[in-house]
């Protein structure tokens, strides 16, 4: 589903070029839930931005479901993103002057969908995240956890091929974080949603199928859950 090949990304900081990603190879299979961890400055957020088409690599290729998004221009990337990718941010990033329902419907309306179909779908997903009655409220009266659930609904409303989450539990306490992670997990298990999540919290990363550790712009290690050994582990734990 995702295939990033030899990706370089450098930024100009003042007079210098800072190389954030170096010759990165990264791939994700359809239906996989991958967590990316690493210290700040390691390039994990940058990778997520590149995957979401918010930025282009300095070199290398990024394919999402066989579309080379690095070759698209700004406008094409935006259109591709709103049709195929869902984003969840650390700060929820909800629009304060719109109701919860309008927030969730935004990607659809931006894509030109009619008002009433967008509304229907939005409410569908609001229900799926457990906020069925909150449609007409404004984000500022919701708790952090609720806001993030709205964000998740918005990310999924366009039935994206890929869900990208950037520190989705960063602003939440333990309990709310767990709610969100279980929500993501739910969609992953039942809808086979492909998810790539950046986090610095191992607790959140634990919900993934695979954890990728970043350091200095390259992948340091990867740890798979290896479900073949799962039963044995549980037995050992119980003993």
């Amino acid at each position: 589903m995702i295939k990033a090949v030899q990706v370089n990304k450098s930024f100009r900081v003042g007079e210098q070029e800072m190389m954030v990603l170096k010759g990165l190879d990264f791939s994700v299979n359809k239906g996989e839930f991958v967590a990316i961890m690493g210290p700040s400055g390691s390039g994990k957020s940058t990778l997520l931005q590149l995957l979401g088409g918010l930025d282009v690599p300095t070199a290398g290729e990024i394919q999402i479901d066989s579309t080379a998004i690095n070759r698209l221009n700004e406008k094409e990337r935006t259109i591709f993103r709103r049709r195929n990718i869902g984003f969840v941010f650390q700060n929820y990033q909800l629009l304060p002057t719109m109701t919860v329902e309008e927030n969730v419907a935004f990607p659809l309306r931006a894509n030109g969908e009619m008002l009433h179909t967008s509304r229907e779908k939005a409410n569908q997903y609001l229900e799926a995240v457990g906020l069925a009655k909150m449609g007409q409220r404004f984000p500022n009266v919701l708790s952090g956890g609720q806001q993030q659930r709205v964000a998740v609904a918005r990310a999924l409303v366009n039935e994206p091929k890929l869900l990208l989450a950037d520190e989705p539990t960063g602003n939440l306490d333990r309990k709310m974080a767990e709610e969100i992670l279980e929500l993501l997990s739910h969609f992953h298990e039942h809808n086979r949603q492909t998810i790539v999540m950046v986090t610095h919290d191992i607790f959140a990363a634990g919900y993934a199928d695979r954890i990728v550790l970043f350091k200095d712009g390259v992948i340091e290690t990867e740890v798979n859950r290896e479900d073949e050994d799962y039963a044995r582990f549980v037995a050992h734990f119980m003993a």
Partner: protein
Amino acid sequence: MRDLWLISWRNVTRNRKRFLLTLIAIALGVSLTCGMLIVKETTERTFEFHERLYTGGADFWVLSHEHTFPADDIAMIMEDNQVQNSLSVLDKQGFVELEGVTGPALTSVRLSGVSRLDHELLVLELLEGDLSRDGLVLPEDAARLWNKRVGDTVVFRDMGSIEVTAIVGYTPILRSPSDWEEAERRHFRVMLPLATLQDWTNREEQISYLRFQVNPQADKNELLARYEQQLAGSAQYVQPVVIDDRQNNSGMDGLYFTLYTVAIVALFISGFIVFNMIFASVMERRKEFSIMKSLGYTNIHIYRLVLMEVLLLSLLGILIGIPLGVWFGDLFQYMLLGIFEPRLDYILHWQAPSLISMAIGVLFPVAASCIPMYIAGNTPILQAMRNIAGSPTKKTKHLRWIIGLLLLGGLLIGHSISLLFLFVGTVLLYPYLFTMIKKLLAPLYRQTLGYPGEVAVQNMERNLNRNANTSAMLACGIALVLFLGASVQSLPEGYEQEISATFGGDLRVHSESPWEPEAIERIAQFSGVAAVHPYRVAPEVAWQTKDGDMRRFPLISFDPEAGEPFQLFSVRTEDSSAAAWSQPGSILLGEWAYLEWGGRIGDSIHLHTPKGLTAFEVAGIVQTSHHDGYVAFMDVSLFTEQVNWPHAYHLLIDSESNDQLPGIRDQLWQHYGDRLSSITSMQEAVASAQRGFDGINELMQGLLILVICLSSIGIGNTLLMNTIERISEIGTIRATGFTKGQVKLMILGEGSMIGMVGIAVGSLLGLGLIYYISISEMAGSYMFFTIPWANLGLAVCAGIALSLFASWLPASVAVKVNVHEALKYE
């Protein structure tokens, strides 16, 4: 103390763009105000100066109701020991002989023989030659057109030849045409020794008038009374010299009103921009202020902090604004005086206006910052530190529209101040208007701009007050454009109607000597002439306002029996007391004279007529185009008796048709050319007025484009602030679906909405204002309801164009930001 200023400087320059915009706003407000004040001051002084030039510093003059009189007849005055410095003048019409130029109208000259060419009372600006030598003195316009220099000889037909001994600069007493086109309508004026002219015209010892100064310590009123008494019953009379040029320069008050209005509007808009900037700055720093307060700063400390920042901005603004204002004032003054004939020289009076503008330049930003200052000082400590936004209390919410409605009610007052109330009231009620119109426009936006348009409409709610205020500024500017456009449009029409109704015929002929009955008969027989009608004018009659101010205007005779075309005035309503007007002791005042006088119908007004100081009862007010209404009328049957003015120097001619006019002129010149002072046609009078209006019209439009530009700076500023505050949101919008193009559309939608609402409300306001003024007393009969289509079109186009243009920068800023940086923005 100095480091407080340093801190303030740093705070102020923290945000470059905001600093510059605020500075520009202050500078523009100050410079426009300064410019307007300078123009007002300079114009006033210039006219006054030229008035004084005209009177030359004399205290009295002695005139006659005859063309000339023997100087001996007033010997007792000339020899009075209080009389110093007397100047005798003889005026005579003649014709100059020029090569290549013929035709009586073009070569008509008024020769003024004066007792001494270098007399103190003449105030001549010598350009070339020598005034102490006896010879011909030419004004530079005449010298140029006649192509004569000092030393050349000039021949006057049937009079004599004389050497040019001096050329002088412009002075009213020698006012001459500046080009041959003007020479068709106006005679040349030249000066020469009295004795020479008396000799040429066989009028030994005769003069037209005497001007003199009296001993400065003398009691002028006492002297006036004495002289009046001495001349009582004779053909001569004495007048005090009064500086009053209102009869020549009407509309000045209206002009000054416009200048003040423009300055106020400019200040308003600049003040609003400053308010927005300081408000945003204060809001951003709420956390800082609460920290300062938790560390010990009191509210007053914080007021002082903000105040210093504002003062710093003001000082810089003044530094830029005043020189700019002086330059602008000079430019505008030059253009303004170009409207008037002749173009007067002027000295720019910039000192006092600059000082006043400096004071304003400090006060208005401070005033505009009062509310933000208050908010800053009263930042609640804990709330701000935790970034909790406070919500406005219910009380302040309602205050706005309550005051707004109250102010609108001020319209009923009917005084010009109520216009100010109207504007302020509109601004206060604006948010509600804005919301209403926004709802109406929403479907349109959805259709044309799609979803981005819908979002734009929703976004307006967010900073409703700020957006409404900005839009209000534009609306006020547009209302002003329309209003002034209509007035400038309807005024000429009104004038033209007035002139044609009250001119008194088709031609007006002014002779230097009285029209004898035979001459009148003869003229009536000219081909093309339908009828003639003489009337009398006692010129330069001094009178007193209710406040004791000395003025002068002409006193004109009217004949209730005269035919239709010869009516010199009209009345607004059918006055039943018309019969009373012909009562002895009654006088009618033109509208303007009446307003200046300050009294009421039935009161008495004191005039120094040629008969002497007399009180008359003001029996009525009339509309007339003569001297723009700064004039008085009296029944002709009373003229000799009450005014001691037996002769008619003016003749009105009604022609059979307009194409006969040139023929009539020719005949007049042919037969009476040597005594004609001027021939004026009604069309010329209209054309002359029209020229003035055209000039003013252009100036107005220029000024008002300026106002709209200032408004659009306001719009750009508001949108920029709106955008910058929303950078994080814009990042979200772009991350979750909007392309750059869609974001731009959204912001353009917001900007154009502010513009549209502004145009809509402004147009309604302007049209309403026009209607209101047209039916009210304020502008007299000159303003009637017309829709200034050109101005409306200009306002709509300019409004749309400028609001789109003003949206462009914020839109570019919005899309330039990197999406991921925007998302992290706090």
